[in-house]
């Protein structure tokens, strides 16, 4: 009994990503068509070349028909997946395994979410009938639980904590300002961020990711076939997923300054990829910055900073575009919003651009490292699912 990973067995040979934003003029079907067509063109394939499809969406449709109808797919397998906010990554993971297994030669993972049709603020979702005792806290509130706990544990006063969170938002907006696909393409002054109306705990509007629509897709083939499609494939080095026992709210030993699921998934991914020092070995990371304290805690859970030091590293610019380890060079959820099924694949799209040297020059990372990491999270502190992938531009 062991987890083996599929390092260098499959590769991404084409990707597509729609602009993310308030697409009043586009429906789910439109975004799926746009992302799929861009991915086909990127890989130089037609839809007939795809043997099977994995669609990630949390609430924008059910069943494979959500994809096969708008794309007019002719009687091929389409799996529809949901794994909370890690849905897009989950579609990618399962598609990769299908190719690695030998079952299919060429597959597509595609994620989509249409959030702006609901008319509500923040994320909404329907739950099965319950006894009424479940927490009714909103997502920003559950993640804001991290802030006082982290500050308390590591001796930060309220002002310093706010400064740290503000800097994370500022950094991601700065990156997003350079990205034509982002929902928000403007730098935001720190004073504006810090002074924004409170949503939950110390979190203001600017500490929260936006609500947007979007879709992204990847074409995956066996590694040995990759060069038939592109000179610069991205090889899949690691795929890990961790679904926790959700005991954070039950277990007094959990202190709300970490995601145990993230630590487990990161450890597993590094083992698969053969990484022992992520901080020095990874060129860039796309992480799940749903709220600013999430990114702060993730820096420690992913091994980018020692425990209790991520706040200093964040203030020092370690994770800036020109820092030691750029985090969310595309602007992150902060700039893109979080169309749930699409986000994980949107993160991979930035790796696709950066590691192939195809990001716009103003945000192209200058690095001789060849590995990129994506991290995608669903749930809340103490009860979540976590995905980590490592992709690289070279075999081995």
């Amino acid at each position, binding site marked *: 009994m062991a987890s083996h990973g599929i390092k260098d067995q499959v590769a991404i040979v084409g990707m597509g990503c729609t602009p993310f934003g308030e697409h009043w003029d586009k429906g789910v079907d439109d975004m799926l068509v746009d992302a799929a067509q861009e991915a086909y063109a990127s890989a130089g394939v037609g839809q007939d070349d795809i043997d099977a499809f994995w669609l990630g969406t949390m609430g924008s449709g059910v069943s494979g028909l959500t994809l096969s109808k708008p794309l007019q797919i002719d009687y091929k397998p389409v799996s529809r997946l949901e794994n909370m906010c890690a849905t897009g990554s989950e579609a990618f993971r399962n598609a990769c395994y299908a190719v690695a297994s030998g079952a299919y030669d060429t597959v597509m993972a595609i994620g989509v979410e249409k959030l702006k049709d609901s008319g509500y603020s923040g994320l909404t979702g329907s739950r099965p009938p319950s006894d009424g005792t479940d927490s009714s806290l909103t997502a920003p509130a559950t993640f804001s639980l991290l802030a006082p706990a982290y500050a308390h544990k590591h001796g930060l006063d309220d002002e310093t904590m706010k400064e740290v969170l503000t800097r994370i938002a500022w950094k991601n907006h700065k990156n997003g300002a350079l990205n034509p696909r982002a929902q928000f393409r403007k730098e935001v002054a720190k004073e504006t961020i810090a002074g924004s109306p409170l*949503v939950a705990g110390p979190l203001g509007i600017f500490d929260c990711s936006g609500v947007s629509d979007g879709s992204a897709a990847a074409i995956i083939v066996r590694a040995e076939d990759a060069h038939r499609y592109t000179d610069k494939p991205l090889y899949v080095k690691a795929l890990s997923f961790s679904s926790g026992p959700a005991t954070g709210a039950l277990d007094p030993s959990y202190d709300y300054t970490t995601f145990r699921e993230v630590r487990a998934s990161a450890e597993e991914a590094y083992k698969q990829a053969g990484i022992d020092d992520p901080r020095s070995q990874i060129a860039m990371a796309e992480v799940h910055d749903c709220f600013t304290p999430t990114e702060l805690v993730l820096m420690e859970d992913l091994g980018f900073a020692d425990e209790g030091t991520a706040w200093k590293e964040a203030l020092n610019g370690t994770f800036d575009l020109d820092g030691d380890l750029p985090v969310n060079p595309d602007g992150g959820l902060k700039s893109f919003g979080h169309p749930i099924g699409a986000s994980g694949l949107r993160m991979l799209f930035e790796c696709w651009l950066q590691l192939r040297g195809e990001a716009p020059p103003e945000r192209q990372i200058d690095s001789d490292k060849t590995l990129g990491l994506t991290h995608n999270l669903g749930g809340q502190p103490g009860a979540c699912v976590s995905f980590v992938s490592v992709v690289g531009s070279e075999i081995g």
Partner: protein
Amino acid sequence: MRGIIGYGTYVPYYRLDRAKITEAMGSGGGRGHRAVANHDEDTTTMGVEAARNALKAATKTPASIWFATANPAYLDKTNATAIQAALDLPQETWAVDAGGAARSAEAAILGARGSSGVSLAVISDLRTGNPTSADESGGGDAAAALLFGDDEDSPVIAHALGIAAATGEFLDRYRLPGETSSKIWEERFGEQAYLALAEDAIERATKEANIGLEDVDKFVIAGLHARAVRGLSRIAGDKLVDDLTARIGNPGAAQLPLLVAAALDTAAPGETILCVHLADGAYASVLRTTDAIASYSPYESVETQIESGNDSLSYNAYLTWRGFLDREPPRRPDPDRPGAPPAFRSEDWKYAFVGSRDRTSGAIHLPPMRVSMDGGAVDDMERIRMADVPATIATFTVDHLAFSLSPPTVAVVIDYDGGGRFQAEMTDVDPDTVKIGDRVQMTFRRLFTAQGIHNYFWKARPLID
């Protein structure tokens, strides 16, 4: 000998300064304060809190619950069943409602007193009235519980020497179902009716008790007809127990038992207390305290509860809580109604706050789990009730976006003394004052009402040491 073997009261945390009514409306108001049920309280939840306080000071659990209110949370559906469930009492407990009128209090008291075994009368009321009305400013919200039993159950602290009632059919105060404000006939008409009825009831009760008014040490005179109560109070002279209306208002059906509790709080052995209730007639009871009262101490005295109130409540918040003022809701979906089958399956959890404890590792699971988070043992759990266990805040947040009648919502992660953790909503607290390390206790509340279903569950509130 059968009589009162214990009691508990509940006065909600918030007070409305009556001057704020005048300030906002130009009239109404007056001096002093009224007690105000929080937006997450109703007569059932206040009844649960009063009953919990009664049982905390008791050695026996009741075999029956007699619940009365003039403002029932549900019609058709019995409300006492939620109280029985929240107290974690077995299904053999006979829990019934008497409802609709302030006089229903007498039904609960006589029912509990007259049935066999330990019996609990729970009386709760939440008084509303049109803005600027006398009922709005003069009303109050509170609950009280009287535990009856025989000496062999637990020492009787007070028993009735004589009880009498007079009944009158006349229009004094009335309200159609669903209305939030009562209508009242001309005061002077009711006064003459009540005074005659009271004279009759008091005469028969004192005769049965074989005492004269000069033998009475304390007079408790309750009733919603302020003028009649004032008139009758002349018989008491300086022996009148303060009716608390200046400090918390008149809590309708709950006033009689609340004032009895206040009288017992300070009573010495051998005291004679004449209790009169004016409500569609008159009820008179001559109580005599026993030696046992010297060693009885309530969980919290009425005075303590009144003293620990908070009078910062704004008038517009009060109006919002009572449904007289609709605030713009957050741009969020309405909460889902609880499902009857899931609530039925989790009755122990939802109503009694009972979790599961791993028999081997001791790990406490809230909500209860079948598989242990510590060691993975399957179905090796025992039930553990956490409703009365104090806890400490581990982390917290203030949610400005969540649906609430009184935003923002305060949420806390709390660690219980002796083990166990839960993420709870916090109530009766100023959001700006919450901090890690604060001490809390659990309280039974109504989270929200959706599609006609009250969603009852437990919240945390500051621990009053």
